[in-house]
């Protein structure tokens, strides 16, 4: 079985075709069937209900990767978590998927419906075992009603033969807050996307993404914050490192629609480059149809500060260790948002191993 998606991660406004950032086509062989996945027993805190299907209207929510990717997961879904938050839950709900040669294909469709003033945290992690060629696609849709607070953390530590995509769509009502953390450190081909519609006043969206490109990994990302309501806020930040022959496209868009007065959007992207064979493409867009707003973007792409590296090495660290510390420092804001210590440690171990092999 093959996957062919004509266009994913479409740039909201097209630019010159030769730059290759308007969108990406996906062509991949799927190593096996989407067999039904054993349902996981979740640690559901009080106030959180698990459902057997998505909430009504979930299909209307637009995602970062777009229709093609969304339809693929919906047609092939073999796992998923559907939650309704009614109360305030401090404890995160965690689920871990481990792919291997016997279960090589996963399409998980997740939904979170957070009722007024509720709060919920969902942590999903994806790993693979035994170097098997595996295939993972994920779709998550979130509605945060008035005053609700939703955190979605997705950690991807798949092996080098994996194909992976993470697609998210968000709608926020008055005073809602949604935080999305994407940790994309493994796989051979990685796609991730998120689109958040800040529909009502004072809603806030935060996206924190970290990525690591090593070997021949390609990473393709698209994050969009659409400001519709007044006094809405968005913070979109990405931090990453590219090694070996890896390449990456990062698209980040803050879109202020007319009427989104007094809104503020910030986006930033910092990429460290470690090899002369890497390729880094960045397209940070600010679209503005409203005057009373503040939009800002900053990007910095370059090699590691040699002074910083020298300082660490003069303290007795090896070059890979020094580089690892610098990368880890850069990843800290996102790592701190992973609410499970064991998972945070797993991410640190992964980084250590990758850097020592670099």
């Amino acid at each position, binding site marked *: 079985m093959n996957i062919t998606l004509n266009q994913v991660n479409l740039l909201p406004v097209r630019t010159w075709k030769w730059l290759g950032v308007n969108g990406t086509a996906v062509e991949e062989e799927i190593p096996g069937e989407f067999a039904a996945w054993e349902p996981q027993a979740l640690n559901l805190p009080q106030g959180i209900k698990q459902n057997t299907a998505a909430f009504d209207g979930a299909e209307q929510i637009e995602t970062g990767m777009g229709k093609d990717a969304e339809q693929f997961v919906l047609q092939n879904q073999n796992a998923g978590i559907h939650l309704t938050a009614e109360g305030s839950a401090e404890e995160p709900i965690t689920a871990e998927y481990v792919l291997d040669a016997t279960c090589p294909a996963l399409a998980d469709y997740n939904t979170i419906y957070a009722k007024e003033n509720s709060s919920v945290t969902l942590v999903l992690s994806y790993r693979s075992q035994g170097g098997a060629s595996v295939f993972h696609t994920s779709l998550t849709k979130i509605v945060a009603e008035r005053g609700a607070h939703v955190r979605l953390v997705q950690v991807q530590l798949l092996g080098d033969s994996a194909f992976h995509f993470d697609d998210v769509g968000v709608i926020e009502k008055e005073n809602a807050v949604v935080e999305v953390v994407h940790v994309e450190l493994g796989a051979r081909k990685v796609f991730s996307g998120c689109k958040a519609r800040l529909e009502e006043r004072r809603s806030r969206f935060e996206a924190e993404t970290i990525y690591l490109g090593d070997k021949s990994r390609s990473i393709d990302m698209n994050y969009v914050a659409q400001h519709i309501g007044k006094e809405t806020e968005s913070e979109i930040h990405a931090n990453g490192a590219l090694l070996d022959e890896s390449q990456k496209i990062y698209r980040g868009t803050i879109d202020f629609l007319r009427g989104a007065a007094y809104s503020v959007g910030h986006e930033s992207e910092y990429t460290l480059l470690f090899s002369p064979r890497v390729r880094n493409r*960045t397209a940070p867009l600010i679209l503005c149809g*409203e005057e009373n707003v*503040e939009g800002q973007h900053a990007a910095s792409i370059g*090699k590691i500060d040699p002074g910083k590296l020298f300082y660490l090495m003069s303290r007795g660290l090896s070059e890979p260790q020094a580089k690892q510390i610098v990368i880890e420092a850069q990843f800290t804001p996102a790592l701190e948002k992973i609410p499970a210590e064991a998972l945070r440690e797993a991410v640190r171990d992964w980084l250590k191993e990758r850097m020592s092999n670099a």
Partner: protein
Amino acid sequence: MKAFEEEKTRVDDIDRTIYDVKDKVDAAFTVDSGLTPEIVNQISVEKKDPEWMRLFRQKSLRTYNEMPLPGWGPSLDGLDMDHIVTYVRPKTGMSSKWEQVPKDIKNTFERLGIPQAERLSLAGVGAQYDSEVVYHNVRAEVEAQGVVYTDMESALHGPYAEMIRKHFMKLVPPSDHKFAALHGAVWSGGSFVYVPEGVKLTIPLQSYFRLNAPGAGQFEHTLIIVEKNAYLHFIEGCSAPRYNVANLHAGCVELFVGENARLRYSTIENWSKNMYNLNTKRALVEKGGAIEWVSGSFGSNTSCLYPMSVLKGEGARTEFTGITFAGKGQTLDNGSKVIHAAPNTSSRISTKSISKDGGTCIYRSSVVITPEAAHSKSSVSCESLMLDSESRSDTIPVMDIQNDESDVGHEAKIGRISDTAIFYLMTRGLSEDDARSIIVSGFAEPIAKELPMEYAVEMNNLIKLEMSGSIG
């Protein structure tokens, strides 16, 4: 929130009185509207093209017909090529004395201040009216240094014919995009400049392009070669009166900057609001050379303009400084492209835009650092002000970095004046209105200071700011 208060600073529309004066259309020769091999051939005959140019035009026309319209950028729906007249020859030949230029045409350039500027501060002037250059002159002392400044037609037939053939549309080939192909087919007019090795021109040359005929296109070609260790400042001005039908400007500028040479290319573009300005500008910079673009874009209905710098030689550098002002009915899609193709190259892009009354400003750019361009540096900064919510302002930059020994920084900002800046000035004793006034004036200042004095004054006249409250 104080900074979001409702009272706005008024920014006047551009005063177009002098630009909108129309001369009676009294052409000596005009081709039919539309584009056919016969019409293109007729242009070749009229212009007494050498055979290679005749063939070049026909090939470009074929390329034009085969290429699609761009799949990005502003709508070009209002542009109907079947109704554009591609060649209009004015009823005069080219002269090097203003007295010999027909009175009505001379008066037009007088109103635009060209002869006065020539007397006061320019080393040479070229003036194009519709499809042909009507005046070209260069000071004797400049000519004595070996500087060539002439119209493209004379260059094509004179001692520099081979040099023209070697460089013409080599940097911007007709296959580059549909309107480059159109330019290749119907180009007419423009200037050729050659600055020999080591010659540093301390005063600028200027070409002014005026399109008078309604429903016509202007397709001038500017070719400039600045040899090793030489320096030139070239100024380009453009305007047209307003008509109810679409006019088209699809000019082409090719700049060759030699080793350690420096070229400053300044443009004040003030086309009328029925103009589609689809111009292509490109510079190739050799080792240690520099291209500096200064661009003020105020006119046109629709503009797509992204001067490109190809940094071919080690240590080459480019600077782009631009301001765009879009008013009612205007979509100005401007920016810059840079290709770093050699080690130790550097680029700096700095732009500002103001949109009001439903106007749309789009900043679009690309910075490409190739694997060969190790230790290169690029910094991009763009700032946009929107003066009302009928207007739009979009920022679409792309960076493509293909080695790990380069540093690229980018920052974009859109919105209103910072409260902190106002507060700071007020703590120094200024009233709030005065503080806002200073900040708004300062917004356009970095661009104005890059222009020669008389153009800075013109630009300030183009954007009249009346301070009576907040902005943005």
